[in-house]
């Protein structure tokens, strides 16, 4: 049998189909030079439309959009303050008990606080139409490693996924393969934890599901009740991942399923990340 172009290319394509299964982590030695080269071009302002900056216009639509952005910012700030207030109440209760214990500690613990690294966003969309990532101008040379949290203000954007020498790809919380434990506070001030599950509908501003392993089966209201999760309630990061700080804002609840009717209760929420405004982000580097 004589091999023809058709057979050779067919064999190559079959090998390519198997490649990501055999090496899901990819081939950094092959991918790094290509990605770093393109990231270098991305750092040149003239060649990267994302860095051209917004042009100020007096049109009504843009003014309305700015006002809307401002309102969203306030909404975020409000949610963060509410969470901080709830935390503060708990902390004040703990403070009384801890005062005596603190006297015996030699170190204040400040040296264990995480530090942050400012990074510039070079690209706000993934090269693949069905993935959600941003490209930042910091890499392994700056101390980044996979799994580190990336935030914009107090909003959680995602985690560092692919690290190159001078750039890194951040997997957004809205990516279809994102996995994150989050917490929602009920009307009775109870904290419920669940896992974010991307819906993968292919749109840029995907809403996300939070699936709970178990919701409290007690009464919604009354003494000892778990309370209800209301639309508009903020969704925060939980403390399951040591590289992701807790209590960062992830989004706002838009829809709550009926836990009495639905065997697998779930909450749908809109991510709070706003890529149009995120020109610079912070990478949280644990000590």
């Amino acid at each position, binding site marked *: 049998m004589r091999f023809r*172009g*058709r057979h050779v*290319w*067919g064999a*190559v*394509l079959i090998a*390519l*189909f*198997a*490649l*990501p*299964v055999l*090496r*899901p*982590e*990819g*081939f950094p030695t*092959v*991918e790094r030079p*290509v*990605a770093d080269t*393109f990231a270098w*071009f*991305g750092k040149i302002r003239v*060649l*990267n*439309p*994302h860095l051209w900056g917004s042009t100020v216009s007096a049109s009504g639509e843009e003014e309305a959009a700015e006002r809307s952005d401002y309102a969203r910012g306030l909404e975020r700030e409000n949610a963060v303050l509410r969470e901080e207030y709830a935390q503060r109440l708990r902390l004040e209760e703990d403070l009384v008990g801890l005062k005596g214990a603190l006297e015996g500690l030699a170190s204040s613990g400040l040296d264990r606080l995480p530090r942050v690294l400012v990074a510039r966003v070079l*690209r*706000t*969309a*993934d*090269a*693949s*139409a*069905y*993935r959600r*990532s941003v490209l930042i101008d910091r890499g392994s040379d700056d101390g980044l490693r996979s799994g580190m949290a990336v935030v914009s203000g107090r909003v959680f954007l995602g985690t560092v*996924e*692919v690290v190159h020498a001078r750039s890194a*790809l951040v*997997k957004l919380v809205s*990516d*279809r*393969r994102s996995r994150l434990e989050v917490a929602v506070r009920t009307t009775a001030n109870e904290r419920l934890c669940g896992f974010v*599950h*991307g*819906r*993968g*509908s*292919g*749109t*840029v*501003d995907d809403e996300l599901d939070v699936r709970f392993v178990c919701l409290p089966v007690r009464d919604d209201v009354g003494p000892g009740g778990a309370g209800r999760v209301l639309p508009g309630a903020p969704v925060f990061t939980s403390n399951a991942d040591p590289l992701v700080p807790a209590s960062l804002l992830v989004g706002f609840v838009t829809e709550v399923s009926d836990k009495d009717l639905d065997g697998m209760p779930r909450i749908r929420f809109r991510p709070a990340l706003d*890529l149009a405004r995120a020109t610079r982000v912070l990478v949280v580097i644990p000590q």
Partner: protein
Amino acid sequence: MALFALWCFVLIAGALPGLWPDVLAMSDHPPDPWVLLVVYLAFRGRGFRAVGWGIALGLVRDALSLDPLGTHAFVLGTTAFLFCEGGRRHRSPVDGPLRLFGTFAAALVAGWLYFLRILPMGGAGVTSADVFGVVPMAFWTTLVGVGLYPILDHFRIFDDLLGRPRGLPA
């Protein structure tokens, strides 16, 4: 010259995804410039030449995206394989409305091949929204092709890559 043009195209394709306007949900289902170029090369190239370039473009796209190496190389390579001169039953030139129809079909095939490719990888499953979301993406890709193909035909910048003598008609 052809390689430089290809390099420039890849640079633009890498920067475009976040820049599409929010008109008629275009930013939700953005056109795929990578598929567009591969289809153009497949319809214009001789034999299986476009398959190699499709795989090379796919490897670059893999390096720039979250997907592991081989994902887009398989998708774009297979798309080129199915639509190139060597893979077609009819060797007559593909042009005009037929080429646009082919672009729409190729964009659909590429989208579905991607979901076929990620199935063994686990994680989020493929939903009906994924399957049908490919259709508007293919529509926008074809619409961009309406404007782009005549420009590429006119300048013949990729002909050197495709084993196509420059004397041939556009």
